[in-house]
């Protein structure tokens, strides 16, 4: 029987010799993740279960990143629940403020997720790790509580939709534009409970950061994960992230022993295949209030902005910030506009300092912040009031996502965001 990459990972982790879409399976997890918003429920449920010890203190990852550094008293309580639980259970992969980063940038960087892994996270953007060739998906807090107990999770085996990207990308067009294009084409429910498999010559040339951006937003089309077959780019990234963590006590060494062939079989069954030539694509922007409401940037150039946010688990990685800095170098943010730049992890923060990007951002008149999910979900560090409009490199532009239900969020990549911050309105980076 031919299988997709997703099938192969689920088979290897459930001990099944064959699986079919629609079937329910129980599978063993490599990593289970929670954050300051979702883990408190899971910890409460775990304690209520009466089980004394978590199944494995290396395979649970806890990251206070959403409202951390704690934005108020209630958030401080939530963060403390994580810290206390980590101490109590000797959870080795608990990342305190100062070590932490936005979870979906942090886990790959720390070498905690590998090609072929099965990963759940009580956060919908856990699908990000699909870029490494993982089956990684967002679940709820009760799923996480259950994983604390026995390291397992139930799945309805998904079918896979194949997305093939052909041609050559224009200047200023990257992973964000590819995924916005995809969501614009298939809609916010275009891949409900399906695996989205991204491939083709454009993906082969895309760097890891661009791939993470694409997989990150698979959930915005309803996808269970956005998977990419590992190639040389992937293995080089994995090698580097491992090297940087070598000898660390939290290093997970006992990942799935079975050798998984990390490619979809040639004749594997796909529920659907989309094939697009993206050579003519220009930078895209998702307008309020759905990520599928996508327009070419040139059609939106009159729209004025009060705030620009560059960061998040979607676009807060070093290549995103290098791109933003390239545009902002020697320029000033439009007076009256707030530019907020948030590197996704401490490592990225330090790279920005060393490479002089931090200086460029500050001199341009931007705020350069410690890692946090912060404004993306209307937490802190850039809340919008009534009537305000923001362009962000984040992933959701739902009503009230960044604050007031009477504010507006537009989504784009870092190049459009940086250029728009200078002009004070949405612009094509070429127009600077």
């Amino acid at each position, binding site marked *: 029987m031919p299988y997709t990459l997703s099938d192969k990972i689920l088979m290897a982790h459930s001990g099944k010799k064959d699986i079919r879409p629609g079937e329910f399976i129980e599978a063993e997890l490599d990593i289970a993740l929670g954050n300051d918003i979702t883990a408190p429920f899971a910890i409460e*449920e775990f304690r209520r*279960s009466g089980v004394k010890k978590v199944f494995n203190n290396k395979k649970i990852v806890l990251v206070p990143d959403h409202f951390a550094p704690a934005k108020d008293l209630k958030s401080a309580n939530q963060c403390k629940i994580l810290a206390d639980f980590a101490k109590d259970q000797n959870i080795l992969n608990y990342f305190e403020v100062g070590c932490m980063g936005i979870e979906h940038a942090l886990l790959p960087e720390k070498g905690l997720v590998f090609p072929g892994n099965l990963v759940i996270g009580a956060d*919908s953007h856990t699908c990000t790790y699909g870029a490494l060739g993982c089956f990684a998906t967002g679940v*709820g807090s009760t799923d996480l*509580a259950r994983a604390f107990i026995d390291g397992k999770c139930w799945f309805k085996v998904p079918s896979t939709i194949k997305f093939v990207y052909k041609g050559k990308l224009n200047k200023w067009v990257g992973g964000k534009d590819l995924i916005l294009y995809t969501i614009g084409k298939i809609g916010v429910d275009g891949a*409900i409970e399906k695996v989205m498999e991204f491939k083709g010559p454009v993906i082969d040339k895309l760097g890891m950061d661009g791939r993470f951006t694409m997989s990150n937003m698979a959930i915005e089309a309803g996808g*269970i994960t956005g998977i990419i077959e590992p190639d040389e780019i992937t293995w080089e990234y994995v090698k580097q992230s491992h090297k940087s963590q070598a000898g660390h006590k939290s290093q997970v060494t006992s990942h799935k022993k079975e050798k998984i062939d990390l490619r979809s079989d040639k004749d594997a069954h796909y529920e659907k295949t989309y094939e697009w030539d993206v050579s003519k694509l220009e930078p895209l922007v998702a307008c309020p209030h759905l990520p599928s409401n996508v327009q070419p940037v040139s059609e939106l150039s009159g729209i004025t902005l009060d705030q620009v946010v560059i960061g998040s688990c979607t676009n807060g990685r070093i290549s995103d910030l290098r791109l933003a800095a390239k545009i902002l170098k020697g320029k000033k943010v439009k007076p009256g506009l707030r530019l907020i730049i948030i590197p996704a992890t401490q490592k990225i923060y330090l790279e920005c300092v060393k490479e002089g990007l931090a200086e460029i951002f500050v001199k341009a008149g931007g705020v350069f912040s410690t890692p946090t999910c912060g404004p993306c979900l209307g937490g802190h560090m850039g809340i919008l009031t009534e009537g305000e409009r923001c362009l962000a490199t984040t992933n959701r532009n739902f009503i009230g996502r960044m604050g007031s239900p009477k504010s507006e969020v537009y989504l784009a990549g870092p190049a459009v965001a940086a250029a728009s911050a200078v002009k004070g309105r949405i612009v094509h980076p070429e127009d600077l």
Partner: protein
Amino acid sequence: MILKGKALKFGNDINTDDIIAAKYLVTTDEKELGKHCMENISPDFSAKAGPGDIVVAGKNFGCGSSREHAPRALKGCGISAVIARSFAGIFFRNSINVGMPFLQLEEADEIKEGDLLEIDLGSGIIKNLSANRTYKTEPFPEFLQQIVNEGGLMNWVKKCIK
């Protein structure tokens, strides 16, 4: 189990930020979450929702964030079930796991705001008492029904590990 309540209607793609905004995700208290349920899109919702009332929506209900606070907020303000044309994946599993009843109904659009509904969860039959119409929904697959019968995932797991 028989559930009875009035229909509270919503459109397509109701996301979990709509159901409970992130600023309220600083508690695990369902009643507290319930006070702010649907606040961004329907500010008087929690005041309007009576015990047992039923949310009726279009396609892709519960899309977006994985926050389990969403089905819990609905429970917290007294909602007894959700009927929608389709559900987003994570909301689907969260509802199974926390024991929030939900039914997929292609004809959900036919139900009007305020209609009195009666749901027989055992048979999957929905009666619209106001419009005198009856709908039959698909039962859950056996695996999910077992979790539902145990009252949610944690009870089911406890039974499995005994």
